[in-house]
């Protein structure tokens, strides 16, 4: 039987993250101001806004990547399934396993396709080749790369095309069975066909994972996300159903930005 404490702690509305009154500072510069936002589980949430608006800062808060930045200070709370991830007792390594990240430029390690996907598992001490092979295959399948890669698993990952490399990075994140995948402009370095592959993949992945994506492409946010949040100068201006935000935005600043009237 499921543990009642864990069950009751989970948000009844199905939010995986609940951010409340979040302020983020880089030394004296305030990058985010009193941001309150819920991130629903198993949906795609897009963060949009002009450069410097704070969207990537917030993204990096979800797996505490900002801890690595000197001078970064955080007030407010971020709860993941009811637990404060900035609590002193939080196991950050475990957090980053549960909250994977895919970056703007594909960054495969200079090793084989197989070793790239197995890397995280090996770091966790898993050496059993049977397990590794199974997880690598499953992860590559989920990342829609298996058919293209299955006959070349021991080829250097750097030989893959940009789009394939990005799918490999997604497979590498998936291998650790995360709950959330953070994506920071994952297609900005890719051509339209590779972009379409990643977008199709995101649609598939959300059945199993929560995806938060930062994108500069308004059309991409409109195409792939369920919820859209618009940030401006550190403020969360508006968050809502993507179909509403792109059809009838509530705030004129959102309207002007998505219509390309400034930015």
């Amino acid at each position, binding site marked *: 039987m499921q543990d009642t404490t864990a069950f009751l702690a989970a948000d009844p509305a199905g939010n995986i993250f609940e951010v409340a009154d979040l302020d983020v500072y880089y030394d004296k510069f305030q990058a985010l101001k009193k941001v309150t936002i819920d991130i629903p589980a198993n949906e795609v949430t897009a963060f949009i806004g002009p450069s410097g608006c704070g969207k990537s800062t917030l993204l990096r808060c979800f797996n505490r990547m900002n801890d690595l930045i000197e001078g970064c200070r955080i007030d407010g709370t971020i709860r993941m399934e009811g637990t404060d991830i900035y609590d002193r007792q939080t196991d950050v390594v475990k957090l980053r396993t549960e909250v994977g990240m895919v970056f703007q430029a594909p960054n495969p390690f200079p090793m084989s396709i197989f070793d790239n996907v197995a890397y995280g598992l090996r770091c966790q001490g898993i050496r059993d080749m049977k397990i590794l092979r199974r997880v690598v295959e499953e992860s590559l399948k989920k990342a829609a790369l298996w058919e293209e890669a299955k006959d070349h698993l021991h080829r250097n990952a750097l030989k893959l095309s940009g789009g394939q490399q990005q799918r490999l990075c997604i497979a590498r994140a998936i291998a650790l069975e995360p709950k959330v995948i953070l994506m920071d402009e994952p297609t900005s370095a890719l051509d339209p066909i590779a972009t379409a592959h990643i977008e199709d993949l995101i649609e598939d992945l959300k059945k199993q994972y929560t995806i938060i994506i930062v994108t500069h492409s308004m059309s991409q946010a409109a195409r792939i996300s369920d919820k859209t949040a618009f940030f401006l100068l550190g403020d969360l201006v508006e968050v809502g159903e993507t179909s509403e935000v*792109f059809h*009838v935005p509530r705030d004129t600043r959102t*309207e002007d930005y998505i*219509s390309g009237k*400034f930015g």
Partner: protein
Amino acid sequence: MAVRIEFQRELQDLHEQIIRMGAAVEQAIGLAVEALINLDTELAQQVIDGDDVIDEMERSIDRKCVRLIALQQPVARDLRDVTANLKLITDLERIADHATDICQAVKTIVKTHYEITIPHDVVVLADMTRRIIRAALDSYVNRNKEQATETIRMDKNIDKLYKQLKRYFVHQIEIDREHVATLIDLLLIAKHFERAGDHAQNVAEWVIYFIEGRHAIYEEEEAAHAKKANRDR
């Protein structure tokens, strides 16, 4: 910094094209009313001949809207603007078609050499239709929700008068078997005015959709449904 200046200029150009089309449609209905009252077949033919021009205006605007969607990928207000325009030009074109149909009927009536006086209430209906079209176009030009709402209200009176006229013509057909064809033509003319009024109402609804992102008629229907469901409970 203001950007997408070219897109905004193209949207402005689109509005001007629609206003010109609206003016042509308003004129067609106006001339159709005049042709009816004076049983003027020459004027009627002028309206019929002018319909091609309005059809071409619609096609040109249609092409422009599709091009703007394809190339500029508008969102939010701009998207509502382009889609509302794309829809309302169909209504404008249909109003012009009704003007043409009215003029065809006028020609048929005159051809029968029947000494006829157009019933007063048909003239009243014609005038109400002319006014609702003007009101719909004004609401479009001014992007004015109150004017659009008033336009929708005006259509209810047109529908009411048409229903009365229909009863009148059915009765006349029963008692005046000699002029059944002409009476049917007159009933059809009334129906064309009533339908033109419906299209004017649609234009006003598209104006409200553009302003608010919601369809006035749907919300009205939803409210009516909710009211009914409450009553039935």
